[in-house]
């Protein structure tokens, strides 16, 4: 790492401060003031709008395989998705994904 100790701590402090301000932005400053209905309607879709986009590249191009699509990881992702849809339960989906991942990694050597 070419960064000096001072530079590393500067990154940590500034990133920490910036991240906190992002988190505090609406909740801290707007408080209980009423939000317009359109904004509320848009915000209803925040989780399903952000998380799939974050996950898709990680599933298709995993860093652990140098960005090459990987059968075991792809099937594990599908398993987690299918179990999540069927059970409507996050924990079962995680367990399903983990079982599929280790089974496939073992089976495919």
């Amino acid at each position: 790492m070419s960064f000096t100790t001072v530079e590393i701590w500067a990154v940590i402090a500034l990133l920490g401060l910036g991240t906190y301000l992002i988190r505090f932005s609406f909740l801290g400053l707007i408080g209980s003031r009423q939000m317009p209905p359109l904004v509320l309607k848009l915000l209803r879709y925040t989780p399903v709008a952000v998380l799939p986009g974050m996950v898709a590249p990680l599933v298709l191009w995993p860093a652990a395989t140098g960005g090459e699509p990987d059968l075991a990881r792809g099937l594990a992702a599908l398993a987690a998705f299918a179990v999540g849809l069927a059970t409507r339960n996050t924990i079962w989906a995680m367990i399903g994904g983990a079982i599929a991942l280790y089974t496939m990694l073992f089976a495919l050597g």
Partner: protein
Amino acid sequence: MAGSTPKSAYRRGIRDGAPFIIVLAPFSLLFGVVATEAGLTLAQMMGFNVLVIAGAAQFTAVSLMQEGAPIAIVLATALAVNLRMAMYSASLVPHLGAAALWQRAIASYMNVDQTYASSILEYERHPEMTPDEKMAYFFGISTPIVPCWFGFAIVGAAVGASIPPAFALDFALPIAFIAMVAPALRTLAHVAAAFTSMVMALTLAWVPSGLGLLIAAGCAMGVGALVETAMERRA
């Protein structure tokens, strides 16, 4: 919830948050390993964990620092990854906005993917919860999650590279996020938003880190709202 109190909401939060230890522990452990391999001291690694407390951004920052990127680029990229939290913050306003400022200040600090996703889903399932119960639930969810995030990174730094890649710890994060999204696909609008997010994020993967995801998320929220409006008209 009939007969519910802030205390029982807090306990329910702890119960719902505890299973996340299974997925956060490997993720936190992995950060400890990666940060140590990148040459960060234990104090610096914990500085990231405690002051930034945002996994994806921490990994982004450390990998850019390793590549020798300028400080401004490291900060801009890692903060872009965290911009989604402005949306989390905004979407919690209708639920937690009435709470005292000090409570909102602490909740903001602990507003991470897992605490946000669990809480917002609980609030949608139980709209009858009072503001006090909602805040108590949020603190309950955070109680097992936040210390777990701090603690396992220390273990990761200690064991370092002795965990074989065969354990595929890298994939704990995608599985966790998929497991959170799938049960949330309740309506056609949710499905349309998720699909838009995925397709656009993949199409915009060439856009410098974080920004493509932001554009994709913005469009996906718009699609969700549009489909919801269209369904209302048809009904």
